[in-house]
């Protein structure tokens, strides 16, 4: 896990630097009301993306400890990433009344609440609006999101160790 974390860190740094360069070089071409903040918010966003990918990797590792098919971690990891990324938006939509559709709220809020016990809300690690639109995240939200991601990674790794220990090699 630490090797993949380092590799993912290197990959995200390379991509981040390329994007950083692209933004600096093309900034004359674009008119925008907010210049993208390229200081702390940018690197915090990259860190958030890195944590985001780490959570998905930990989940994939847990599946890899269980599965007997090599493609399963990849497929389930992708499904997990999409589900967790959209969980927050769905929960927020339902919490704000779902445009007055009471049936949606009644049918889906309980299952989504239960899903929230097992799936992390990865959109919480997405701080892109901080860089792009100067929306500073709420105080405490950053550290809580990081803590949530770390706890979930630990949870997934422990689950992976436990299930790998019980695995029957034959």
């Amino acid at each position: 896990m630490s090797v993949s974390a380092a590799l993912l860190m290197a990959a995200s740094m390379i991509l981040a630097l390329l994007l950083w360069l692209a933004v600096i070089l093309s900034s004359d071409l674009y008119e925008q009301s907010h210049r993208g903040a390229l200081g702390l918010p940018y690197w915090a966003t990259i860190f958030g993306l890195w944590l985001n990918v780490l959570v998905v990797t930990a989940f994939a590792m847990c599946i890899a400890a269980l599965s007997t098919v090599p493609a399963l971690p990849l497929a389930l990891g992708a499904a997990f990433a999409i589900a967790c990324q959209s969980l927050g938006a769905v929960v927020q939509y339902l919490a704000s009344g779902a445009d007055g559709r009471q049936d949606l709220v009644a049918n889906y809020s309980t299952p989504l609440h239960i899903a929230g016990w097992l799936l992390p809300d990865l959109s919480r690690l997405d701080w892109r609006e901080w860089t792009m639109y100067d929306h500073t995240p709420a105080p405490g939200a950053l550290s809580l999101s990081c803590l949530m991601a770390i706890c979930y990674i630990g949870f997934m790794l422990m689950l992976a160790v436990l299930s790998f220990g019980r695995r029957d090699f034959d």
Partner: protein
Amino acid sequence: MSALPTRIKYFLLGSALLTYWLGFLTTSTRLEKIRKPEVSAEMQVILPRGIQVALAGGDRFLAANIDTFRTLTADPQNQRADRFVIQALVQEDAAWLNPRHEDNYYLAAANLAWNEQLDAAQRILEAASKNAPIRHAAAVLLCLQRILL
């Protein structure tokens, strides 16, 4: 770890699993109470003119139309000052792509002039009234604005 009996090993791992899970639960329930800020990406960016034309399949009039649709469908509730800076740029692009676009100059005269973008509104009206008959609406609007504002 291998020296420990299996039962204790499983107990330790299981308790670590539970601790992590509880930590995850507490942090995620506390996070749920903090609402994310709602972001409106409307009137925040503008593409270079060449790319606008390329995206419209090389049709400059369609590109001007798209800019005008963007202006027309902009949320009237969003009255932030920086929105009109971008809207002025969008409409000036539309005017550059198709100077005689009627929706564009009517909107410019109606919206931009009253939201601290008078210069942009007048440039759009000027472009529209160039070589136009004297009773052309853009020329009339431009004269009215020059007199009144």
